[in-house]
């Protein structure tokens, strides 16, 4: 095809490991193969990502999984109807605490290998002792109120009896500021995507205590966000972009490319860190502390339909947490909207496959506390939790 048939796509991203598919598609020829000129713009806040996609500066964006839902249900400002056209990977986040807090948690019997139940119960004992001693509540950082990070941290805390709004304080901080905030004792712990956990571990400043994969197995993290209006006007471009991103995913998943990928992501125009900080997550082996232990952790799972095909059940779980934590009231009419936002249809059409073939194993039975998510009874599910807003 000639020059004239190349479509330009502008994508916003936040410097995180899971921007990898966009970075690789743009720089390793996969977008070009689909006649797409993919231009990436790095942003400083999720609010900017939301605003700039809403006004049309960005055609697509690297977005937190719950963001398209919050936008479509009009529970954020600059709300426009959106779709999560594909997942940009599974896993991703981890929870890191300061070395001092880890020492206290160890004394309470925290699990060295990051098992969320035992580690969480150790933290819960510590939280109660601190309250009894009149010490200030522990402070945790997350990246955004409408994020997997916020919901995973809250799910874990609440699951071990810690009320996330009453027993601890949760603040919002941008990912790159987390490690320094921990070092300077401004927060005691945080939930963030890689490499911002490993950076604290490498520096001997923090300890990873558990990770998203252990709290909610095989769950989506970032999505390719797209406004309904852009998707409807550019169906063919969107399909080609998804194909390019799937090829980028296969490239990322090939162990032969890991060093190259780490070097690429670490570059000043992307994450601006050291390749060594990116490698543990890319290899799927996280070192929880500076002296280990190293654990198998699917923190960057890409390639294959399960890692990329939107599933309405995941969207409904995010919605259930919005209700649980008081971000929205439960409205039955929201349910079909959420299902549509997380519909596999665009993805399936892009790859020329039938959506039913994409249904994975039940994602609702994969929580660390064993509580099953019943997608047909979202309100009952939320009401079943003793701890909620």
């Amino acid at each position, binding site marked *: 095809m000639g020059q004239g048939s190349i479509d330009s796509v502008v994508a916003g991203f936040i410097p995180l490991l899971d921007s990898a598919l966009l970075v690789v598609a743009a720089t390793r020829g996969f977008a070009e193969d689909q006649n797409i000129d993919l231009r990436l713009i790095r942003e400083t806040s999720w*609010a900017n990502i939301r605003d700039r996609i809403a006004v049309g500066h960005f055609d697509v964006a690297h977005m937190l999984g719950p963001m398209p839902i919050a936008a479509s249900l009009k529970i954020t400002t600059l709300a426009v109807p959106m779709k999560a056209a594909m997942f940009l990977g599974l896993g991703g986040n981890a929870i890191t605490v300061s070395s001092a807090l880890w020492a206290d948690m160890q004394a309470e019997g925290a699990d060295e290998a990051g098992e969320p139940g035992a580690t969480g119960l150790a933290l819960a004992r510590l939280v109660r002792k601190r309250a009894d001693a009149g010490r200030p509540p522990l402070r945790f950082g997350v990246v955004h*109120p409408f994020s997997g990070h916020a919901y995973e941290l809250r799910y874990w805390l609440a699951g071990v009896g810690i009320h996330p709004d009453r027993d601890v304080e949760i603040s919002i901080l941008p990912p790159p500021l987390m490690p320094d*905030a921990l070092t300077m004792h401004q927060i005691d712990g945080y939930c963030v995507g890689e490499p911002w956990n490993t950076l604290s571990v490498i520096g001997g400043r923090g300890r990873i205590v558990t990770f998203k994969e252990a709290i909610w197995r095989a769950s989506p993290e970032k999505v390719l966000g797209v406004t309904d209006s852009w998707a409807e006007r550019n169906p063919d471009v969107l399909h080609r972009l998804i194909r390019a991103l799937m090829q980028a995913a296969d490239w990322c998943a090939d162990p032969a490319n890991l060093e190259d990928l780490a070097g690429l992501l670490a570059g000043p125009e992307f994450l601006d860190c050291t390749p060594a900080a990116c490698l543990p997550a890319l290899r799927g082996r996280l070192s929880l502390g500076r002296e280990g232990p190293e654990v198998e952790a699917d923190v960057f799972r890409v390639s294959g339909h399960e890692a990329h095909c939107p599933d309405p059940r995941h969207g409904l779980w995010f919605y259930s947490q919005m209700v649980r934590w008081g971000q929205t009231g439960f409205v039955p009419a929201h349910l079909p909207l959420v299902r549509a936002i997380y519909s596999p249809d665009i993805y399936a059409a892009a790859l020329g496959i039938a959506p039913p073939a994409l249904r994975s194993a039940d994602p609702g039975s994969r929580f660390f506390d064993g509580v099953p998510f019943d997608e047909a009874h979202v309100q009952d599910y939320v009401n079943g939790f003793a701890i909620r807003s």
Partner: protein
Amino acid sequence: MTPALSILVIDDNQIRASIIEQGLRDAGHFRVILVHEMDGLVRRIAEIDPDVIVIDLENPNRDRLEHMFQVTRAVQRPIAMFVDQSDAGSIEAAVEAGVSAYVVDGLKKERVKPILDMAISRFRAYSRLTAELEEARNELAERKTIDRAKGILMKTRGISEDEAYRLLRKTAMNQSRKIIEVAQSLVIASGLLGD
């Protein structure tokens, strides 16, 4: 007569903030408060209780600020972004110019739009300032930022100025970063959290 609106301008770029302030004063708005320091920002907003908040889009505080508007009791009145979501043209122009505005719910569009328009035009004007000016400012700001980071460390860790500088340098070296980057991150985080 309607009471004068109080307008809070949050921009760590002092030159640009002054340009906006001047523009607003020229237009008859005398209750303009500039905030460059991110220290204790939430508390300051609660004290000032502004009708309109103008903030630059580069500011990494935006996610935190919006969260605060949603959940804390520090802000007495509900705050919404822009005045009217149906005014797509203004919103787009603002984002294009690199500025965002939050207004107290219930304010009339006619009262807020001139303020937003002013902020937009001044942001654009600022973008046209020479790169030379920018460079000189950055150099000065870097030195100031490192001094502030040292001050924060001396206060929070109870260490000397030399030790604070060594801690910054060591942190930077361990992570193969520049001292100014570590200092910037520390100052911003301190502002975000020191409420």
